[in-house]
């Protein structure tokens, strides 16, 4: 039963208030103003006042405009016909493709998966980026953010991983994306030939702010349906900080007490309910989420990256165009390292990082003007090789080649007893007589 109301009593931010009865919490409505029609969602009920968040924004909405309640929550079309299509922030196709109204609709923002129906992820996703594959491998069903300051090539990295990763369906959720970036993604996907198995939900920076909130939910609801049907889905979200900012805007217009830098106290739960959609279904497919979280002021303690870090299964730091070895972490790596990948993967990973930390320390020491010892020389040399062979984002090698290169690099710089590796691995892999005299 559709009901219409035409008496808006309050407009604040993008929230309007209409008196109405028998309206369900979370229900959808259509707001018809002289500037167009927008969807809106019930976000609060107080007596017979209904608070609606208008997706297209409240600009141009008049107190006399019509509000039509649809009697259902937000839904999105679903079907194989979605593959290769591009949608805007409210779920309408923007690629001039065929009409999709005949497709069944699914509700977005559904309930969470029963934890006992999840399985322990075991699938290693090779990306041919050694800083990812060797040091922090991506695991199927993982949720991983890329933390980056403005100006870092995070979307390039995201696109690159998206193109190469071995997934059945790739879903891009662009939130507040610059139009150029959207075009870049599109071209990259077209060139790599993945467009036919990808779906894009694109909200660009010039679109209404509230629509940002819908993008992750739509992308993940569609991903979930593919996942249940046995597909291995990769969801790319960029940029989740823009999503959090939209949450902040709504919370402030609703007079909520802010907790930290104006963000609502529910920020953690709001982000978690999206990221937690990443799952490996028992006996069906999986959803892997790779998201960009831009760090305002390159500050990881900013509430958005901070809360994200606690939710996700690790994080990549992108700094000065490279993935930082320190702080970057894939929490699920232990599930695949040495189990799906080579047995020596674990030791080489830990030792190389430990030695690189030492090398950085030596660098700092030398920068302060201390004498170089012979030890220092070797660490410096190691640091240089590590950067060239592993950190540079242009390096494009598979995991096993990268591991071999790791052993080679270690034996070129150190003696076996200096690297802190169990003897059995040293016996197996150490390249003898390679120590370079400096």
């Amino acid at each position: 039963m559709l009901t219409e109301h035409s008496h808006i009593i309050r407009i604040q931010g993008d929230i309007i208030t209409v008196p109405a009865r028998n309206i369900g919490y979370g229900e959808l409505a259509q707001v018809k103003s002289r500037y167009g029609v927008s969807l809106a969602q019930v976000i609060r009920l107080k007596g017979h006042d209904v608070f609606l968040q208008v997706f297209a924004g409240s600009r141009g909405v008049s107190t006399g405009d019509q509000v039509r309640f649809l009697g259902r929550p937000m839904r999105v079309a679903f079907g194989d016909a979605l593959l290769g299509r591009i949608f805007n922030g409210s779920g309408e196709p923007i690629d001039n493709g065929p009409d999709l109204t005949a497709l069944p609709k699914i509700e977005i923002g559904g309930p969470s998966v029963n934890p006992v129906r999840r399985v322990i992820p075991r699938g290693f996703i090779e990306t041919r980026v050694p800083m990812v594959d060797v040091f922090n491998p991506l695991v199927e069903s993982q949720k991983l953010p890329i933390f980056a300051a403005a100006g870092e090539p995070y979307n390039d990295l995201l696109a690159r991983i998206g193109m190469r990763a071995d997934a059945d369906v790739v879903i891009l959720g662009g939130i507040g994306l610059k139009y150029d970036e959207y075009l870049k993604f599109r071209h990259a996907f077209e060139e790599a030939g993945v467009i036919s198995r990808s779906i894009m939900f694109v909200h660009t920076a010039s679109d209404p702010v509230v629509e940002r909130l819908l993008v992750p939910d739509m992308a993940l609801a569609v991903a979930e349906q593919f996942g249940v049907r046995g597909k291995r889905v990769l969801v790319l979200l960029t940029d989740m900080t823009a999503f959090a900012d939209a949450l902040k805007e709504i919370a402030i217009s609703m007079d909520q007490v802010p907790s930290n830098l104006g963000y609502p106290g529910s920020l953690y739960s709001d982000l978690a309910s999206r990221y937690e959609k990443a799952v490996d279904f028992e006996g069906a497919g999986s959803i892997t989420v790779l998201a960009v979280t831009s760090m305002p002021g390159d500050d990881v303690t900013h509430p958005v990256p901070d809360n994200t870090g606690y939710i996700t299964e690790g994080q990549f730091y992108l700094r000065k165009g490279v993935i930082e070895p320190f702080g970057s972490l894939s929490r699920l790596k232990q599930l695949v390292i040495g189990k799906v990948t080579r047995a020596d993967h674990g030791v080489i990973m830990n030792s190389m990082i430990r030695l690189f930390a030492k090398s950085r320390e030596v660098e700092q020491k030398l920068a302060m003007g201390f004498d170089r010892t012979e030890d220092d020389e070797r660490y410096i040399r190691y640091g240089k090789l590590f950067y060239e062979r592993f950190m540079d984002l242009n390096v494009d090698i598979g995991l096993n080649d990268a591991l071999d290169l790791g052993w080679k690099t270690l034996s070129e710089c150190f003696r076996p007893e200096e690297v802190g590796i169990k003897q059995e691995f040293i016996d197996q892999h150490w390249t003898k007589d390679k120590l370079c005299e400096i």
Partner: protein
Amino acid sequence: MGDLSKGRIIAINGPLATCEVDQGREVLQNEVAYVTCQGASLKAEVIRVRGRQIDMQVFESTTGMIVGNEVTFSGELLSATLGPGILGMIYDGLQNPLTHLENEQSFFLKRGQYLNSLDEERQWDFTPSVAAGAVVKAGQYLGSVPEGLFKHHTIVPLALRGTWEVIEIMPAGPYRVSETIAVLKSTDEGREARVTLKQEWPVKMPVRAYQERLLPNRQMLTQCRLIDIFFPLAEGGTACIPGPFGAGKTVLQQIISRYAEADVVIIVACGERAGEVVETIREFPELEDPKTGGSLMNRTVIICNTSSMPVAAREASIYTGITIGEYYRSLGLKVLLLADSTSRWAQALRESSARLEEIPGEEAFPAYLESRIAAVYERAGLVQLSDGATGSLTVIGNVSPAGGNFEEPVTQNTLKVVGAFYGLSRSRSDQRRYPAIDPLISWSLYLRQMKESLAARCDGWVKLVEEVHGLLYAGSDVHQMMLVVGEEGIGLDDLITYLKSEIVDAVCLQQDSFDVVDRATSLERQVADFLLLMDMVHHPFTFENKEKARLEMTALHNRFFQMKYCPFKGESYLKYRGEIESMIAGQGAESPC
């Protein structure tokens, strides 16, 4: 109280629903109510009463709820069901068994489904231990049923006050959890009470059915060296593990949950990742309990309210877990509760406080944060039961401080009430020094408190530990100095101190949780290895120059390092041990390289 109070919804704001209760009807604070919504009945808890307006937090999604929906009050507080059959279960925050929801053949959790916490059909072999006529008090044993390897005592319901006389006790035989096994009569009031194998207890109330609380003075062994040696945990004690994300809080807790020497382990996954719980759920049934040889799951209870599950139930999950812990403690068992993470629980408080429009305290947390945290940790403890035996509930809470900054309110309020602090540091985890518990900031009040029981290992154990702890500080000072003045700027003695502290760090503090041998160290091995390490620490090394010192200490370092990966008292272990002993004894004679 007659028939139940009813009301109607008048406002909805996220999980907070406000209803107006019928005139003159009684409502309890923290009472459970059910809201009818789209054909389902959603559980909620009263959190504020203002005249006829009752604010409730709904434990489910409120989508589709409308103004005017009917609310039925239950007349009861939010309670946990206690009885045999809890061990091995996986519950949500409201004690619904998730494995049974699973049978519904759906991947997703449906709202409004509430199942019995215990299997009502299963029969337990009850053996009475008292006869009719006995006079008993709450918490005293009436008999027992076998639950796994334990004797699960059937106790006089915790909620009964005063003394009671056993009027009737059933003979030995199989009973379901809801069947009467005894009838008691109050000696004061003459009221009768029916006892079943199961009972209910309001989760937010501490169980006090014990004789007295004792000072925790026995160690709860975790098999994590850094904790057991430097910052020991007492049975019945409390500890918190704060740390920035990625510092290894969860891995540390998982390790403790596996190898700690407890009878019962309760894992409360409170607002954390589902994936981590899944590992526990899937792996524990296959892991062997080193103590009993059975499956590790048989001693484990998992309370799982992951981050995407409803926020209000997250707040309840900690209480549900701790109530189950107190129950098993009253059966005379050694219970360990691990909560990951109490910050998420505090955030759930913050969310509901914000929706109630309460005046916020620091960082928008409610002003009652401190008292709530204290109340939770204070429920831990070592107690003497009515039969003279002891039971203990040890609580380790993870804290996830915003920005990794320990100054924030949840960490600070937790530190006030716990007995041990395991602070994880980013710099140690960046250097892959796991577990990343920073020995320079962590502390445990139990080290001295347990001085006497620890002395059983060797005379002056605590003193030795403190000495090594001092060495770690000294080593860190030298390291800081070296960063400023370089290695050439420090003396040979300082260098030796530093190298010694590095050996202690590498072989005692750092523990490889993914290595079959190193991940858990038995008490016997801890003592043996630690004493060998002490020989090294006490040895007055003399070297010609720094280069030589580095070379020889590196060789020694490597022996210790290799040894820790060798099975205790195995051939290779003894070989390395022998080498170390002779290196220390014959130091200076020849270079081992």
